[in-house]
């Protein structure tokens, strides 16, 4: 048996395996289209063509103009460009909710921005957003994620946009849509915002490719200065192979999304049912509040470091909160912001599903979770 089939991979929200179509494109590009697309010779022109076509594919999936697509090095860079770029361009204050990914939250904190409360369901507290925007006269950018990476919570961006347009009409409304690509129609997301960030490795593309869609007319100062690629919005030689693979992955994701979302929702329901049979379980969100790919659940009397170890031993790859620089698990700032009690948050687990997940994976993962939680509780009681 291969290593891969031994493993039950339930960590798609961290990275989903590359789609075979994307691997094929990337391999071909790395082999054949090695030229720098900024050159003028025939090989450069071929690489340029790949780049242009990739931009069209990405623009189609987002529902924006190709000229509004900026390729970056990662989702974090896209978020940073939207936030720091807006501040550098126009000055003013940045605002985001407390449950954002650190790519946004730490960036907002770095520019001394304002952090808005979130409700118990993980969505931005619109009344608090309204209050903060009303008392801050110079809001330059508001960043609200489309889908939360830890809980899968879906944001009502239409409602957010209404508040932002009313209270801070000059502000750039940015959304970190990194976790949305597999589950939401990005065109529906894009309708409400001025900027949108994606990361290729979350939808079956390679690591090292990000996308920032920026609505025409919105001015963001670039983070990187140099050769003036991406219409001066992001200098640096294009990662042609990665971009082509990202575009292919996004095309397949977009085409299969509706059926995939239905299939994964059914697997998610099975997982919930199996895990819900345990005592002392608290699902962080009801199924209809989260994308089908993420199941966040807390267990009483369980430390998630122990749980993750036992799951790993059973061949199940999962995660909890986010890892710090040393690799240790930090307590989840997302669950804390939602008001989940610390005792529960300590036992939080994120199982995330994706395009390779099967019913067999779900059954094995459920078995392993039940066995691990049971063991931890038994041994902990025995010791105390």
């Amino acid at each position, binding site marked *: 048996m291969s290593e891969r089939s031994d493993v039950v991979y339930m960590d798609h929200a961290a990275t989903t395996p590359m789609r075979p179509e994307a691997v094929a494109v990337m391999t071909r590009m790395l082999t054949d289209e090695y030229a720098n697309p900024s050159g003028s010779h025939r090989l450069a022109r071929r690489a340029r063509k790949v780049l242009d076509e990739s931009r069209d594919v990405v623009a189609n999936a987002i529902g924006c103009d190709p000229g509004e697509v900026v390729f970056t090095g990662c989702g974090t860079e896209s978020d940073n460009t939207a936030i720091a770029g807006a501040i550098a361009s126009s000055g003013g204050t940045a605002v985001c909710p407390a449950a954002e990914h650190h790519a946004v939250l730490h960036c907002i904190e770095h520019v001394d921005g304002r952090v808005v409360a979130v409700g118990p369901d993980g969505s931005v507290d619109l009344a608090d957003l309204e209050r903060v925007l009303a008392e801050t006269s110079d809001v330059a950018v508001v960043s609200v994620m489309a889908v939360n990476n830890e809980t899968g919570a879906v944001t009502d961006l239409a409602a957010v946009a209404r508040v932002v347009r009313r209270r801070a009409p000059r502000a750039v409304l940015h959304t970190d849509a990194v976790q949305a690509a597999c589950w939401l129609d990005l065109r529906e997301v894009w309708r409400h915002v001025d900027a949108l960030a994606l990361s290729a490795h979350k939808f079956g593309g390679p690591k090292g490719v990000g996308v920032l869609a920026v609505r025409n007319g919105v001015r963001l100062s670039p983070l990187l200065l140099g050769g003036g690629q991406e219409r001066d919005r992001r200098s640096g030689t294009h990662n042609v192979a990665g971009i082509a693979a990202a575009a292919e992955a996004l095309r397949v994701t977009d085409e299969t999304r509706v059926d995939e979302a239905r299939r994964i929702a059914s697997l998610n329901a099975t997982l919930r049912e199996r895990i819900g049979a345990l005592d002392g379980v608290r699902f962080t969100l009801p199924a209809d509040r989260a994308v089908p790919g993420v199941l966040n659940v807390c267990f009483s009397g369980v430390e998630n*470091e122990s749980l993750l170890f036992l799951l790993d031993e059973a061949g199940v790859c999962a995660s909890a909160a986010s890892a*710090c620089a040393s690799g240790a698990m930090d307590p989840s700032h997302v669950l804390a912001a939602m008001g989940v009690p610390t005792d529960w948050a300590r036992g939080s687990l994120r199982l995330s599903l994706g395009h390779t997940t099967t019913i067999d994976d779900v059954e094995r993962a459920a078995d392993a979770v039940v066995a691990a939680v049971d063991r931890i509780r038994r041994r902990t009681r025995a010791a105390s």
Partner: protein
Amino acid sequence: MKVLVAMSGGVDSSVAAALLRDAGHQVVGVTMRLWGGESDTGCCSVSDVDDARRVAQQLDIDHLVFNFTDDFHRSVVDPYVNDHARGITPNPCIECNRHLKFDRLLERADVLGFDAVATGHHARIVEVDGTLRVARGADAAKDQSYVVHMLGAEALSRTLFPVGHLHKSEVRAVAAELGLRTATKPDSQDVCFITTKGADGASGRSSFLRQRIPLNVARVVDETGTELGSVDAVEMVTLGQRRGVAGGGGNKRFVVDVDVAGRVVTVGPESSLLVEREIADAVTWSGAPRDGECLVQCSAHGDTRPARLIVDADGSVEVRWSSPQRRVSPGQSVVFYDLDDRWVIGGATVRPTPTRRVPAATGTPTTS
């Protein structure tokens, strides 16, 4: 056996993991993340975690990181700060071993199905009179039995010290032979959560404490009450200290009393430090409590002194020196060894004694 090895990123625990692996055990390395703040020494910086992980990769064993920062804060850092505020000089390494390495980690290891926890301490485990006890490591200069003295028989039955029978030079030789990146890494020094220099250029300890508790100026007086000067932070002064207090005292003048509440530091000759006995509590015994003759070690690398132990009804212990000895700072551990200085009988923490009342200006010192 399935063994969880605590890997700090230093050479001793690297070699401990290697020896266990070579002995055929199923070994997993773990680095405990204990301190989230700034640190330039000790065992929890990111670069130390990197070293531990890289050694584990080289040994082809799994490596984990456990986040015990909350426990460390509660069991080690908070008491460290609070003790200083009371004029007590704690030993945080001992409290870390007591609460983290051999309590939290043993518990975690059990939950995860490990048979034992191993560390790179230079100490051995021996069975004497049917009881497992901590014994001195083979390398007298590196012996760490003092800092792991609190381990009882139950904990020791699930603990391994794989380098305890080696000299440090042998440990380094094994590491070099295996090509481990930690082979020539210097030994860690000082308190792991405190930087050697604070941001303000002051000592790391003083800037660490200043961020957490008020540090108070104190008068420095001699035993007749004559004022000799002042110190910036009475909380930082340790009994027996010679440097940094009292202008003109030179090497012959020691801190003989620290009155934090009254903000007075008294200096005097060494003879004023000599006492017949110490009272210590938070006692741990290796086996049953016992009165009688033993050797007592009062600091991590200090010499031993002969004494007689008398167990009090309240569980504390009186250490009655064979001849008068310099006072031990309150908060420091006294560890009792057998008369041949081979293994640990028990250990305890020296209890704070009432401070002397020193007259404001002149007069005869009295002891309250």
